[in-house]
C-alpha cells in the first residue's frame, strides 16, 4: 500500500548490502508497515554507486531515488561511504541545473539494526515523492520519429500500425 494515495509511484532504492539492505530486512522481519513504492537494488557498498545510476534512473522515469548505506565510520570496506558521501552530495546540489527537482533524490545512512529508522526513512521519502507527484520526463523519442507518428495523426489519418 502506498503512503498517501492509491497510485503507486516509481521509487528506486540503492541499498548497500551490509547495512541498509539488512536494515530493510530487519524492518520486514519486525513487520513494520511500510509503503510499497520503493524498488530496492542491492549494491555491495554505497561506494559502488555511480551518481550516474541515479541520473539514469531519473531520466528513465523514476519518480524518486533513495540511496542508503552504512553510517560514516561504519563502512564494511572502511571508507566506501566517505567517497559516496562526496559524490552523492555533489549530485544532489547539481541536480537543480538539470531541471530535475533535487527533492526527488535523497541519500541517508541506516544500519542493519535500525529497522525502525528504515521504516521512518521509507515512509518519509515516499510521502515526499507523493507530494511532488509523478516526475515529468524528457522525450525519449527523437524529433523526427515523433513527427512521423504525430503528423498523420494530427491530419486525421489513422496510425499506420493500427490500420
Amino acid at each position, binding site marked *: 500500500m502506498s503512503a498517501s494515495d492509491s497510485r503507486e509511484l516509481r521509487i528506486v532504492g540503492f541499498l548497500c548490502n551490509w547495512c541498509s539492505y539488512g536494515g530493510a530486512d530487519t524492518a520486514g522481519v519486525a513487520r513494520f508497515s511500510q509503503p510499497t513504492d520503493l524498488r530496492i537494488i542491492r549494491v555491495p557498498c554505497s561506494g559502488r554507486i555511480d551518481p550516474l545510476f541515479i541520473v539514469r534512473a531519473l531520466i528513465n522515469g523514476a519518480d524518486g531515488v533513495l540511496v542508503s548505506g552504512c553510517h560514516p565510520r561504519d563502512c564494511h570496506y572502511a571508507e566506501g561511504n566517505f567517497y559516496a558521501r562526496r559524490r552523492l552530495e555533489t549530485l544532489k546540489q547539481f541536480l537543480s541545473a538539470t531541471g530535475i527537482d533535487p527533492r526527488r533524490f535523497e541519500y541517508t545512512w541506516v544500519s542493519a539494526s535500525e529497522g525502525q529508522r528504515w521504516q521512518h526513512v521509507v515512509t518519509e521519502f515516499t510521502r515526499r515523492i507523493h507530494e511532488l507527484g509523478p516526475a515529468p520526463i524528457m522525450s525519449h523519442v*527523437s524529433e*523526427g520519429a515523433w*513527427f*512521423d507518428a504525430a*503528423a*498523420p495523426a494530427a491530419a486525421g489519418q489513422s496510425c499506420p500500425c493500427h490500420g
Partner: protein
Amino acid sequence: MERFLPAAQLTALADDLAGSCHVLAPVAHAGSVVFRWYRPGMRLEFSRMASTSPKAATFPQTEPLLVAQRHEEHKQPVIEATLPPQARTVVLGCRPCGARGKEIFGPVFLGVAHDPYFARRREDALFISLVCTRPETTCFCSSVGGGPADPTGSDVLLIPVQGGFVARSVTEAGAAFLQHALFEDVGARGAEADAVVTQAQAAMPPSHDFSSAPAKLLARFDDKEFWEQQSAKCISCGACTYMCPTCYCFNITDDDLGLISRRIRTWDNCMSYTFTLEASGHNPRPTKAHRLKNRVSHKFSYYPSIHNGVIACCGCGRCIKHCPAGVDIRAIVHAAQEYAQ
C-alpha cells in the same frame, strides 16, 4: 514553369504546408540555424546556411526498423517491422548542395541493395532549394560538380530577387507544387532571376580540379607519416560526418525500453574508434590518422572509383566551418594531389 513568391509570404507558405505534410526547414533555434521539422510559430531563417544538413528528409538520424513488444498474455514478444509513414515531405529552403547530397549517395541505397526506407522517403520528398548568391569561405560546390544554382536533386529552385523569390520548377512534381495559391505570376522578373544566377556563378572562386585525387590519395594509402601530419589537429569527433549531406554510414542497434525493444538504424561516424571495432577486440583503424585517411579517401578516391567518378562530397563546407579544430578537407586532398614523390 516559373512563378513568384513574395518574401512576406514565405512563412505563410510554410504554415500552410505544415498542415498537410512534413516540412523540413532551416529554423533559427537560440543562436543557431538548424533543419527542424517545421511547426507554425518557428522562425524560418534563410539568410544563413543551416549548421545541419537536410539529409534527415531522406535519411533520418534515427530510423526505427522494427519494434518488439512483450505483452503479458503472450510468451513470445510480438515483433512488427516498421516502414516510414507515407506522408509527403517538403524540404523548404535547403541549398542546392544539400539537395544534391542525396543524389550522390542515392545509388548506395537504390543500387544492388534496395533500401525501402530511403526509397520511400525519397519518393515522398520535394526539395525546394534556395539559390546561393554569394559563396562563403568554405564553399567549394563548383569544384565537386555542383554550383550555386545547380538543379541536381532539387524540384524547385528559389532565386532571390527584389521583394521575394522567382521559383523555377526543375521536375514535374516541382511544377505541380508551384500551383500553390501563394505563388504569383512571375511577370517580368525572369530576366532579373537570370542575372542573379549568372552573377552567383561568377562569384564562385576558381574551381579546383580534383580529377587526380582518386589516384593520388590511393598512392598515399600506406604513407603513415603523411596521414599522421594531416590528422594531427583532428580531435576525432563526429561533427564533420553528422553535418555532412553525403555521409551515409549507419549503425543498427537494439534499444531496449523495458517491455518495448526497438531496432533502430542511426547515423554512424567513421571518425569514431568503435566504427571498425571488431568483436574480437581487434581494430583495423586504431588511430585518428587511420580514420581520417578513410574519411577523406572514401569521399575523394574510393567512392568515385566505383561510382563513375562521382565525388562523395557536395562542397557545402560544413565539415570545415564546424570543425572544432579547423581541419580543412580541401587542404588534405590538395596536399595529397601535390605530394612530390
